[in-house]
């Protein structure tokens, strides 16, 4: 059996992780209840059906994945003790840990993994069918070996085996009945460090320690309670008072996070989002005049003061974006900032000049043309952002009217009817550009009716070609080359005005430690978290 470079690296990471575990284990004692604020309340706990944040935050404690990832996105062993990728990239072999049992006491076998990939992830998961498109079959030569057969190389796939992205669920439970309306959707049974106990709708979900977890001595916490508090000010108050100990992913308003950071009892970190890398964007409908004109789009890009937006709407939690790819991909070499930049001091003048030259003259009221901006219905910040866009574009003679609709309408308008001028959005880059970046600009992802895809409807043959090559290219340097060109073209065409890389503040009560230890952040299992 030949181990690839990546697998070796994974193994090394695992060893390192175990070492560091051993060292700090002395300081860790068992016990304590961690109350995490989850917002909003999840509709179900079926993370195999939905990538909805709140579902994942809770379900990731109950379901294990084949792999884990550290803060630098390095894969670590989890249910898979080791793995091997064939040199041509057409086959992945996982060696499963033995003696792992589900919460109902039944053992975890290769059949469960096969079921979780072939019957669940490839079928019911929102992203799975794309991610695992190349998987043709999952073979189970024995109870603890799983072999994925691929139709083409898919190096990005290795990033998709976390308990959040691809949970391994028991076939004997979920294999019977209708998976999409399964009775256990609200009472999940997995093999993770915490067992589901009860769900008081509107109040909390209670998870208790799984005493027979396969990591010896872990988890340290006796219990995790996910609490739901609809009002943001109240969430902050609950954290301040110690009624809740943990909040992530925008559960705490950005301005409050800044204030909570000054509280000696709390720590605020922006780590734990490396696996997601959300990018805030002003989405343009490039099928509409005058937004089909590259010069108009560039003018709009110049008119945006990204630092102002970060400072005053997101209270400093962010970093100006240069394009569709987050700088979190810099360590892997895929990211480059060497593209046309719109973050200039004289942005408004340049914008006005471009528009004047392009023939969009101002009328008597100083208006060149009018646009309708649909505010993104995902919180106050986006309402403010809409108001900012209105003001900023007003300065370059574009009169913007704001429309504020609820989520259902916005989704329908943006992705189904494609009936908008401009709107805002934030798309996750996720663990690999193939999963997170391609969907924003590839022509194949112009799919009316499919949400969170290419909403600008822009694409070009050249970028499509480069993206398709990057998808199957195992060589990192070559991949980086393809992406560099894509980023350059896209920055010039600017079908979407990328505003900033969002940094979500995560608030942790200082009574607890080792809560954020993974690139998955709040979507990890918390098996190492402990109470001081």
């Amino acid at each position: 059996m030949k181990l690839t470079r990546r697998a070796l690296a994974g193994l090394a990471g695992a060893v390192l992780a175990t070492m560091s575990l051993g060292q700090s284990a002395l300081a860790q004692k068992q016990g304590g209840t961690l109350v995490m604020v989850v917002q909003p309340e999840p509709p179900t706990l079926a993370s195999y059906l939905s990538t909805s944040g709140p579902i994942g935050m809770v379900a990731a404690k109950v379901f294990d994945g084949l792999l884990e990832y550290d803060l630098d996105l390095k894969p670590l062993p989890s249910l898979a003790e080791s793995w091997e990728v064939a040199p041509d990239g057409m086959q992945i072999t996982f060696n499963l840990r033995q003696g792992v049992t589900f919460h109902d006491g039944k053992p975890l076998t290769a059949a469960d993994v096969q079921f979780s990939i072939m019957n669940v992830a490839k079928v019911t998961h929102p992203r799975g069918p794309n991610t695992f498109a190349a998987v043709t079959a999952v073979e189970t030569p024995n109870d603890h070996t799983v072999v994925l057969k691929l139709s083409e190389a898919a190096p990005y796939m290795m990033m998709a085996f976390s308990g959040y992205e691809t949970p391994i669920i028991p076939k004997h439970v979920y294999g019977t009945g209708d998976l999409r309306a399964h009775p256990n959707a609200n009472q999940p049974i997995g093999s993770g460090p915490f067992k589901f106990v009860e769900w008081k709708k509107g109040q909390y979900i209670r998870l208790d320690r799984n005493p027979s977890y396969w990591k010896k001595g872990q988890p340290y916490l006796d219990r995790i309670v996910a609490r739901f508090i609809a009002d943001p000010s109240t969430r902050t108050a609950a954290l301040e008072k110690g009624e809740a100990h943990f909040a992530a992913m925008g559960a705490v308003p950005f301005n409050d996070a800044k204030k909570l950071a000054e509280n000696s009892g709390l720590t605020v970190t922006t780590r734990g989002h490396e696996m997601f890398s959300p990018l805030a964007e002003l989405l343009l409908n490039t099928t509409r005049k005058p937004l089909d004109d590259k010069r108009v789009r560039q003018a709009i890009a110049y008119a945006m003061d990204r630092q102002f937006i970060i400072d005053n709407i997101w209270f400093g939690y962010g970093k100006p974006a240069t394009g569709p790819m987050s700088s979190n991909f810099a360590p892997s070499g895929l990211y480059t900032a060497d593209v046309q930049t719109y973050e200039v001091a004289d942005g408004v003048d340049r914008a006005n000049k471009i528009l004047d030259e392009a023939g969009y003259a101002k009328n008597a009221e100083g208006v060149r043309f009018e646009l309708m901006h649909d505010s993104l219905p995902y919180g106050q910040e986006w309402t403010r952002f809409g108001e900012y866009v209105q003001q900023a574009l007003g300065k370059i003679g574009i009169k913007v009217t704001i429309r504020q609709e609820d989520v259902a309408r916005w989704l329908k308008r943006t992705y189904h009817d494609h009936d908008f001028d401009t709107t805002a959005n934030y798309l996750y880059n996720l663990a690999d550009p193939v999963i997170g970046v391609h969907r924003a600009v590839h022509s194949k992802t112009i799919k009316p009716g499919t949400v969170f895809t290419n909403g600008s409807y822009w694409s070009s043959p050249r970028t499509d070609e480069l993206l398709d090559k990057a998808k199957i290219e195992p060589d990192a340097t070559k991949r980086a080359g393809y992406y560099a060109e894509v980023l350059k073209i896209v920055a010039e065409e600017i079908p979407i005005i990328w505003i900033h890389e969002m940094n979500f503040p995560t608030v942790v009560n200082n009574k607890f430690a080792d809560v954020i230890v993974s690139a998955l952040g709040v979507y990890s299992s918390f098996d190492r978290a402990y109470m001081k």
Partner: protein
Amino acid sequence: MAGGRFLRYIVWRLLQAVPVILGVTVLCFLMLQLAPGDLATVLAGEAGGASPGFIEELRARYGLDKPLLVQLALYIKNVAVLDLGFSFRHNATVASLLAERLFPTLLLMGSTLLLSVGLGVLSGLFAAIWVRTWRDHVISLVAIVAYATPLFWVGLMLILVFSIRLDWLPTSGMEDVVAFYEGWDRAVDIARHLVLPAITLSLFYLALYARLMRATMLEQRGLDYVTTARAKGLTERQITFRHVFRNALLPVVTMAGVQVGGLLGGSVVVESVFAWPGLGQLAFEALFSRDYNLLLGIFFMSACLVVLVNIVVDIVYVLLDPRIKVGT
């Protein structure tokens, strides 16, 4: 009054309520159809994306592809046998989701009613007794200010003062989720959590009832039977408590009955501020996720609650006022 007749009256009132509740249900059903976007889109959005085929499959599964009237007929048919349907978003029956919210809702509503009617009647009573003194002015001023204060503002302020600054009461929720108390301790814990939301929600109604009570007390005091009582040699206190009080209570009871619907609605804001797991918040969520089965279930249940409370109020009224005849 004869027990049998009373029972007949209640049955009669319940039967009368049926068309109202049915009407409300149909009204709500049709109204919700006007909203663009449906559950399938929202679920797909929430899940983080899905293929068009999948969304169509969801629609078919939820019956959203059937003609409107067929959907309505099906719904009414089910409601008639008290089957409120299934919430696909929550993957649970609507009845079970409602059942979970019923206790907190009734608890908040009940304590708010008790608090606002009780304290409102008392303060109105004393304001009337002390009419045109500084104490009356203080009560009236507080009442009229409370009557004009936005609910959410009161809620946020109470949390700020009593939870954060003074640390007397919990900020939110219905019970302590670290301790998970049992038995009596749990009751005390829930009561502590109930204090702030109940006060916030009652404040407006308390002011309303206080003002109403004061006004009717003063009005009643000008009536002839009070002069009779005075001519009998009764003291003002005796007149107030034996004669005027009960007469003045009647309009307050009527008003309280009318306000129950408002109470359920007003609780949306309070539930959201205090994270109280009631129907209002659930309705809010259900609306924005287009979970119409659930939302209709909530409307159905709140209509039932309102109708029930109105029947109770009528019964109280019959008990308070011998002039109202039962059985007509």
